[in-house]
């Protein structure tokens, strides 16, 4: 009964209050019930395995299709077969990752160009990345669900744009936008709620000013806020979103922005420095040490998170084109054969006038 001994005996509701506190649903409980935690949070090992499995499944199907293609086309020459072996190869896990991330980045910058709210852009990126934790880029290429994802994110974030006007703005067609809407919803496992770190940023922005009252400059805090917002947007493209909660990511962004400020804030918030006076003056040694422990644990977590969100992952344009071509060839072996035929013709002494004509038109 250590918890109740500190209670004043004058309060008859003390015990009742203690019981009630025990049963109370905490904010942590709420987050643990969210779909973001239940379905879309992983350990690094789980996430890695998931990507390996998705890639392996699609690669197997690709190889199978290739085998069937070869069997159906007995007339293939040795040269063509060699080209197939070289070109029609399934993409790797790493290549999938690079391609998906590139498109996730694109969707955010595209949303920016369309003047869509930050949350819509973030949700669109999240939807796209989650879609490829269920499907492989070899099943549906990112280009094909790009606008669908953005359109659907608008609807899901209560920022409705009619499909006609959306199509006009994106120079696409309503049919192509709506074609994969169900597939997207199904892949998202019918869970649409996204908690992004931006809300937490606003909260910390205010709380830091309260906790460090008189010690921070408002103008400077505004600068911290804006820079962190950018860091968070970049962080949404890392795997941190699968390993950490939104406020943890926010704190990591703050730590990255101003280590001294954020550490000071957390130290005061969690009484990390021993013997420091409590906010309300009276301190309970047990609660204090628990708080301190939580604070230290949190600091360790957000340092980890900071490391992950600080990793640079820029992929070169030619690398992306190479991956895109690889997907194209592996999913359409016929195109490899046509390519070989074209090369043979263009290298032969007398070029086929019809072929060169066709090529001209193409370019």
């Amino acid at each position, binding site marked *: 009964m250590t918890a109740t001994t500190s209670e004043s005996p004058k309060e008859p509701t003390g015990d009742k209050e203690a019981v009630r506190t025990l049963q109370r*649903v905490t904010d942590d409980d*709420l987050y643990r019930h969210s779909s973001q935690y239940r379905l879309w949070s992983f350990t690094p090992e789980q996430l890695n395995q998931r990507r390996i499995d998705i890639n392996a499944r699609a690669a197997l199907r690709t190889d199978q299709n290739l085998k069937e293609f070869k069997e159906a086309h007995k007339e293939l020459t040795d040269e063509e077969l060699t080209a197939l072996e070289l070109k029609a190869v399934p993409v790797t896990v790493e290549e999938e990752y690079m391609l998906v991330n590139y498109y996730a980045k694109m969707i955010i910058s595209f949303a920016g160009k369309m003047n869509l709210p930050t949350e819509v852009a973030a949700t669109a990126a999240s939807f796209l990345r989650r879609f490829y934790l269920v499907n492989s880029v070899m099943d549906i290429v990112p280009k094909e669900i790009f606008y669908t994802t953005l359109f*659907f994110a608008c*609807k899901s974030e209560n920022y409705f744009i*009619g499909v006609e006007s959306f199509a006009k703005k994106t120079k696409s067609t309503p049919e192509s936008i709506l074609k994969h809407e169900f597939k997207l919803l199904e892949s998202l496992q*019918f869970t*649409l*709620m996204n908690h992004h770190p931006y809300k937490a940023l606003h909260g910390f922005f205010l709380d830091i000013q309260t906790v460090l009252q008189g010690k921070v400059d408002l103008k400077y805090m505004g600068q911290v806020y804006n820079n962190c917002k950018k860091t968070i947007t970049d962080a949404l493209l890392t795997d941190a979103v699968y390993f950490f909660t939104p406020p943890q990511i926010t704190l990591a962004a703050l730590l990255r922005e101003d280590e001294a400020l954020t550490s000071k804030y957390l130290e005061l918030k969690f009484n990390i420095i021993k013997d420091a006076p409590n906010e309300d003056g009276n301190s309970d040694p047990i609660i204090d040490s628990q708080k301190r422990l939580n604070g230290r644990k949190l600091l360790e977590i957000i340092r980890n998170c900071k490391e992950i969100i600080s990793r640079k992952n820029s992929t070169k344009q030619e690398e992306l084109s190479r991956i895109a071509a690889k997907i194209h060839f592996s999913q359409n072996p016929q195109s490899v054969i046509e390519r070989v035929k074209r090369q043979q013709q263009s290298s032969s002494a007398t070029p086929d006038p019809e072929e060169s004509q066709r090529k001209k038109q193409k370019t």
Partner: protein
Amino acid sequence: MMQTEYSKEKKVGEGTYAVVYVGTKYSTNRKVAIKEIKTSGFKDGLDMSAIREVKYLQEMNHVNVIELIDVFMAQNNLNLVLEFLPADLEMIIKDSSILFTNADIKSWLLMTLRGVHHCHRNFILHRDLKPNNLLLAPDGQLKLADFGLARNMGSPQEILTSNVVTRWYRAPELLFGAKHYTGAIDMWSVGVIFAELMLRIPYLPGKDDIDQIDVTFRALGTPTDRDWPEISTFSTYNKIQFYPPPSRDELRRRFAAATENALDLMCGMLTMNPHKRWDPTKCLTSEFFVELPEPTVPEELPKLNNK
């Protein structure tokens, strides 16, 4: 997730965007309601109401919020499998053969407030609370349903539409066309529902949107900028009729069976100024729920008589 996990036995309702069937989950023999979302004829793809309903129900887990058991796709239709709830509070209120006591009212109100509290804790606004959307389970539990108008609580600068909530349950700030509002709009609805439970007729039945303003302020008094300083920023405010607020005695006469604590709670929820209106926590910890009679245990609440 397979369609074959469920049977669709009987069509029980049809709305603009969905058909509802009663069915059974084979594996558990549990009775369920299956809401089949119509997909053809919507040129903008999946309907917003369906998206909202799926989005918010997936996140909530509370005895006083309808449970979304499963979602599946069949023949290109979206199907929501919901817990089967055969009655709603409107049916009970309207059925004059059913008698209910103050303890029963307290029980229904308590369950409603708990459900609303859970929504608001999750930063979700229901935006369509009315007796018809408070469903009753066979074990007497009341559940908030129909999240087709729900949304996340807006961030400070975000503009929200005031064209929400069924007219009779619409808060004054919505009647004035507020572009920013909070969970307080749901609390107003609960206040009106509380009044309706005591009166057993709709409390503020406006004939149209203009009449709703008149009916609301005639019953509860036109707010002034003394108790609601921001009120003059609404452009329509200057055009409305001024009514004095009802005296406590007038309220006592109108709600003859209500205790002082019941009136306090109702007035708390029907406070004009949304900043001062009682929130779910204040309501749930109010004296009304401490004083006798204790709320009826859900299992013993009045039920619809079998037709």
